[in-house]
């Protein structure tokens, strides 16, 4: 698993929103990489910066007010933050594709499914005939498990159910064989039985096409069942990163622990749920110290003053907490990752 090539590297990325209330760093110096063919989960609560991270990678941060203020996003050695709009358009779809939470808002209600799918194909394959494009569209629709693909080409988005629309979105995203698929809460708007179908489809496609998937979600259950590696974000920063088994069995950061224990488990009844006190802070409101200190049951004086680094506690496990300082895994070659 380690030997797999790193497809995408995000280094010290900072995305700031310049609002009337001042500059708000929604994503605050985060670094991670996405490996070939893996499913990486990014999990966190509202306002933690998980969606802004994905929009930054796609070059879709609404600007103004948003802007990537520092850091780099490397794809095959190219820094995506430096590309022009025109160059970025080539990356989107062909190299990195994205699907969103609500498929109805991502599809144009005035055009048929066939129209929209072939448009996506023809933009990237200018020399193709319409016939060839629609044959490819049918092929893609069969790939994502849509029934009666030929008829569906002539139908409009409103005639499809939520699950079918999300399948169309996945077909459209995969139409140019991207290396990376970013899925931002792809199943949040769907019912559980449909969610199970879509997650299964994404896992199948990941294996079949070897597309790396970055799955952004707030649902820890979805992460546990779908991902290999997971990044936990809190208030614009990565607080913990590691393989799914480690994070769920041996969570290190107090926030990750709290989050896992707050979820009601369907398999047995807990007498009382663990709950993290306080509220989810708005981005940019914690100016000093650890972002989580105000809600943390282990917090001590130093947590109020300094923000801890992301400490490497095991080969693939990193945690941003002073409790882990000095407990890093044997670090001959690996020093604690510096962060701001």
């Amino acid at each position, binding site marked *: 698993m380690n030997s797999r090539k790193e497809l995408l590297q995000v280094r010290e990325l900072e995305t700031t929103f310049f609002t009337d209330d001042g500059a708000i760093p929604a994503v605050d110096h985060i670094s991670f990489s996405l490996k070939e063919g893996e499913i990486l989960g990014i999990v966190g609560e509202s306002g933690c910066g998980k969606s802004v991270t994905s929009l930054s990678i796609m070059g879709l941060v609404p600007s103004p007010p948003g802007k990537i203020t520092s850091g780099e996003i490397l794809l095959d050695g190219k820094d995506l933050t430096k590309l022009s709009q025109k160059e970025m358009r080539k990356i989107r779809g062909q190299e990195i594709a994205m699907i969103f939470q609500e498929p109805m808002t991502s599809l144009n209600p005035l055009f048929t499914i066939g129209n929209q799918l072939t448009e996506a194909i023809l933009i990237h394959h200018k020399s193709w005939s319409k016939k060839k494009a629609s044959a490819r569209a049918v092929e893609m629709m069969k790939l994502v498990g849509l029934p009666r693909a030929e008829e569906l080409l002539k139908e409009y988005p409103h005639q499809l159910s939520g699950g079918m629309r999300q399948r169309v979105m996945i077909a459209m995203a995969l139409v140019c064989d991207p290396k990376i698929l970013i899925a931002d809460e792809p199943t949040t708007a769907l019912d559980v039985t449909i969610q199970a179908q879509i997650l299964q489809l994404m896992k199948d496609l990941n294996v079949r096409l070897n597309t790396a998937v970055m799955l952004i979600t707030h649902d820890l259950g979805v992460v546990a069942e779908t991902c290999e590696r997971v990044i936990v974000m809190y208030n614009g920063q990565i607080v913990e990163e590691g393989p799914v088994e480690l994070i769920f*069995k041996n969570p290190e950061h107090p926030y990750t622990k709290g989050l896992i224990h*707050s979820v009601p488990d369907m398999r047995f009844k807990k007498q009382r749920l663990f709950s993290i006190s306080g509220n989810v802070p708005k981005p940019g409101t914690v100016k000093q110290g650890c972002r989580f200190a105000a809600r943390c049951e282990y917090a001590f004086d130093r947590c109020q003053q300094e923000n801890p680094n992301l400490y490497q506690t095991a080969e693939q496990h990193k945690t941003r907490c002073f409790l882990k300082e000095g407990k890093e895994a044997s670090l001959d070659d690996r020093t604690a990752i510096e962060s701001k």
Partner: protein
Amino acid sequence: MTEPLLKVNNLKKYFPIRKGILGREQGSIKAVDDVSFYVNEGETLGIVGESGCGKSTTGRMIMRLLDPTEGSIEFEGKDLAKLSNAEMRKARREIQMVFQDPYASLNPRHSIGKILEEPLIVHGLGDSKERKRRVNELLEIVGLSSYHAKRYPHQFSGGQRQRVGIARALMTNPKLIIADEPVSALDVSIQAQVLNLMQDLQQDLKLTYIFIAHDLGVVRHISDRVGVMYLGKMVELAESEQLYNQPLHPYSKGLLSAVPVPDPDFKREQILLTGDIPSPSNPPRGCTFHTRCPFKMDACTSEVPGLVEVEKGHSVACHLYDERFNNDI
């Protein structure tokens, strides 16, 4: 045994489909179709189901925010379905509702104090001083402070707003609270806070809950008994432990196995339900679930199964448990 606090019998809600310039009735959407259940005093009945199954419509009919097409709703010996609007308004003192989106259900132009005071004014309870005292008392009970009374809804976070929503429901000291997806708009860490609060309040104030949600984990956590709805019908109703450990209806089985569990080691036999939920305007004949059911028989396409008690306290609407069809399952 004591009488249940609420008894719902053969409740139906059909929404007419009108078409053409004359608006003739062209059929109906059977949002809730012949649902019966009861709720005992002090317990929590959870109602789960996917979108369009009629769980919210059921809750709204008990509050009489929607008038039932047929059926009765007995609450403390009165049939709520037959009350006039004025009588119902009085009855709502005993039955209150907590909504999903606290932002949409709190008036942005009113201070929290005013929002909380309003139910007391409507029901003519107390004088100005007493009302203020009650507002402060309730704010403390739900974990806010009396100084919050002067603030406006936009100054609160989602979790705090839901606390205000709960406080408002409790103002008139009701017996029954209908909570319609009260935590589904909240972040996980806040969701746990609100669920704990609701459990504490239930113990302290002897409340009875009808808890409507789509999240099966949340429903198990809070409910004593759980009803599963599908396309306007109650397909299974049992003690929460029974239902989750041994679901009988194929839909309940599929639903439970579809929920992602936050444990990567957890392996299970997954029953992946295929297909989509059919439209309630044109539900399948016979058992409404037969189009997605892996155990379909001939009878399922023609005969509607009734909700039958197969074990003590465990009812299911499925032909598989009907002796006439003599099954081994």
